[in-house]
C-alpha cells in the first residue's frame, strides 16, 4: 500500500509536469485543468503516504533523509497549490512540478529503512526540521518564479518577444511572487535555523560544536536570502537582482542538501 501510493504520487507529478509544459506551449485550457487535477491526485496520495509512514514509524516524517525528502517534496506541492490558487499563475507548474518530481524520485533512491528512535522525538528537533523544510519549500517556489522572471525579463529587455512572452505572467506578478514567498519563507527558515542549536542545548550537546563542512553552506544560504529579504525592505532590491539571488540561494540549498546526505 505504501509503495502503491508512493508510485501514484511519483507518476502524478511526472504527468503533471508534462501537462503543465504542454499548457505552457500550446495553451489548451483543458490541459491545465487536467494537470491541476493530476497534481491534486498526486498530493492526496503523497499525503496518504506520509500518514502511513508516520503510523509505521510512530513519529512524523522527519527522521531519515528519505522521509525529509518526501516531506520536503510534499511541502513544495502544497506551497505550489496555494500559490496557484492565490496568484493564478498556472505556468508556474511547468517549473515547480518537475522539481517536486525530482525530489520524490531522488528520495526513492535513498534508503527506506526506518530510523531507530529511542523515545518520542524531542520537541525542538521536530520544530527545527519542520520549519527548515517549510523554508526550503518556499525557496524552491522562489527559484521556479525567479527562472520565469529572468526568461521574461530577458525577452522584454532584448525586445525579442517569443512565445513565452505571451504565455508567462508579467514581471510585476513574478516579482511579487518572489517577494511573498521569501517574506514568508525566510523568517520560518531563520527560526528553523536557530532552533537547531536550541535542540542541541536541550540535549546537553555542545551548542557550538558545529560540523563546519555541514554548516557553512547553511550560513551562506541564510545570508543570501537575508540579503534579499532585508534588501527588498530597505534598499530597493527587487526584480532581476532578487531573482538572481533566489537562484543562487537555491543552488546553495541543493548543495547543502547533498552535503547532508
Amino acid at each position: 500500500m505504501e509503495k502503491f501510493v508512493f508510485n501514484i504520487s511519483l507518476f502524478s507529478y511526472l504527468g503533471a509536469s508534462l501537462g503543465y509544459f504542454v499548457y505552457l506551449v500550446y495553451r489548451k485550457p483543458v490541459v491545465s485543468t487536467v494537470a491541476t487535477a493530476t497534481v491534486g491526485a498526486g498530493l492526496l496520495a503523497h499525503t496518504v503516504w506520509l500518514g502511513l509512514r508516520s503510523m509505521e514509524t510512530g513519529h512524523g516524517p522527519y527522521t531519515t533523509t528519505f522521509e525529509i525528502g518526501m516531506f520536503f517534496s510534499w511541502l513544495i506541492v502544497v506551497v505550489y497549490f496555494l500559490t496557484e490558487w492565490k496568484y493564478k499563475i498556472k505556468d508556474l507548474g511547468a517549473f515547480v512540478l518537475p522539481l517536486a518530481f525530482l525530489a520524490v524520485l531522488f528520495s526513492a533512491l535513498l534508503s527506506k529503512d526506518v530510523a531507530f528512535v529511542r523515545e518520542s522525538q524531542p520537541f525542538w528537533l521536530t520544530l527545527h526540521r519542520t520549519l527548515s523544510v517549510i523554508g526550503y519549500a518556499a525557496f524552491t517556489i522562489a527559484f521556479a518564479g525567479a527562472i520565469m522572471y529572468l526568461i521574461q525579463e530577458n525577452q522584454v529587455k532584448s525586445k525579442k518577444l517569443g512565445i513565452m512572452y505571451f504565455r508567462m505572467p508579467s514581471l510585476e506578478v513574478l516579482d511579487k511572487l518572489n517577494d511573498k514567498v521569501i517574506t514568508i519563507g525566510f523568517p520560518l527558515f531563520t527560526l528553523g535555523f536557530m532552533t537547531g542549536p536550541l535542540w542541541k542545548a536541550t540535549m546537553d550537546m555542545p551548542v557550538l560544536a558545529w560540523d563546519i563542512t555541514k554548516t557553512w553552506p547553511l550560513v551562506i544560504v541564510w545570508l543570501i536570502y537575508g540579503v534579499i529579504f532585508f534588501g527588498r525592505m530597505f534598499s530597493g532590491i527587487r526584480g532581476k537582482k532578487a531573482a538572481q539571488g533566489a537562484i543562487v540561494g537555491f543552488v546553495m540549498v541543493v548543495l547543502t542538501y547533498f552535503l547532508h546526505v
Partner: protein
Amino acid sequence: MADPNLVLVGVNHKMTPVEIRERLAFSPGEIEASLERLVSHPEVIENIILSTCNRVEIYARVRDTSKGVALLKEFICDYHNIASGDLDNYFYSFQGEHAVEHLFRVSSSLDSMVLGEAQILGQVKDAYSLARSLRSTGMVLNQLFEKAFNVAKKVREETGIAERGVSISSAAVELARKIFEDLENRSVMLVGTGEMAELAAKNLISYGVKTVYVCSRTYERAESLAKTLNGCALDFDMFKEEMHKADIVITSTASPKFIIKKDMVEHAIHQRKNKPIFFIDIAVPRDIEPEVNDLENVYLYDIDDLQSVVSANVKEREKEAETAMELIQKEVTKFNNWVVSLDAVPTIVEIRNRAESIRKNELEKALSKMEPLSDEDKKTLSIMTQSVINKIFHKPTINLKKQTQSQEGHVYLKAIRHLFHLDD
C-alpha cells in the same frame, strides 16, 4: 429538405477596390428595403445583407442555386444603378458548404484586412438581427448565423488570432502590461504632444492609468492636451525632476538631439527605489539615448522596436489563422450534418420499412395458426393490416414533414429516430 440551396454573392477588400465597394454599399435603411424586396421574390426563401466598409455580401437560401446567384448579382447592381456586366470580375459567389465556410471565416475575422480584429463579428451580428427582426430569415440562415457566432467565439478563445496587438499603441499597452500587470493607478508622463503619443496615452488610460503628466515646449499645448486627458501640465524643464513619478514615459518631441540621457534615468530609478520605468520613444529623430535600455529595471522601446513587435505579431496571427481554419473546417462539416439531418424523407422511409416487415411477419404467423383460408380472405387480412399501418402513420408523417421546415425540425427528427430506435 434535402438541399437548403445556400448561396452567397459579394465583394470584399481583397478583390474589389474601394471605388467600387463604396458604390455597392448599402446603408441600414437600404438594407431594410432590400431585405424585404428580396424575400418577397419567388426565388428567395431567406436572406441576410452584410454591408461594411470592407465588404458587401448577400447570404440567401434560394429555390435554385444558379438562378439565385444570378439574381443576387443583378439585384446588387440594379439597386445601385450599375450595369451588371461591368462588375462581373469583382463578384465572388459561393454555394452550399463553401458559403458556410466563407461566413465562418468572415465572422471569425479570418477574411478581415486586420486578421483577428473584433469589429467584424459585431457587424455580422447586427446584419443578422436586422434581417431577423424583418423576418427575412428562416430556419437555415438562423441556424447558420448562430453557428457562425459560436465558431467566431471558439476561434477567439482557442487560437491566438486576437492575442497580440497589431498596432503600435496596442503593442505598447501589451508591453506595459507585461511589465506592470495592472495599469490601474499607474502614472504616465508625456514629453511632447505628438499625435501618436496622445493615442498611446488614451489607450493606456482606457486600461486604468490614473495620473497623466504632460510636458511640452509650448505650455499652452501641454495644457490643452492635459485637459483632454484629464491630467496636469508641467513646464517643459520640469520633466527631468518629475520623471521619477512616472511608471511610463512617452516621448514625441521634435528635438534633434536626445533629451533623456542615461544619467538622468539612472537618477530617476534611484529615486524610485528601482521600481521599473517603461520608456516609449515615438519621436523621430529619437528623444531618448538608446543606452538607457542598459539600466536595470528600465525598458526602452523606440518606434522601430514597436514596429518590429507589430510585424512579428502580424506573422503570428497568420500562423494562428491556419489553426483557426482547421477548426472552421470541422464546424463546416458539423453544420452540413445538421443540414442533412433536416431531411425527413429517409426517416419516414425507414419507419415505414420497419412497420412493413413487422406486419408481414405477424401476418404470416397469424395465417399459419388459422384454418386454411381462401385467397380472398388472405387478401382481405393483408389489406386490413396495411391500412391500419397507413392510418397510424398518416398524421405523424404529415406533421413530421411540416415540423422539419420549422426552427426545431431537427429536434423532432432526433426524437422520432430515438423513439423508433432507428440509429442502433
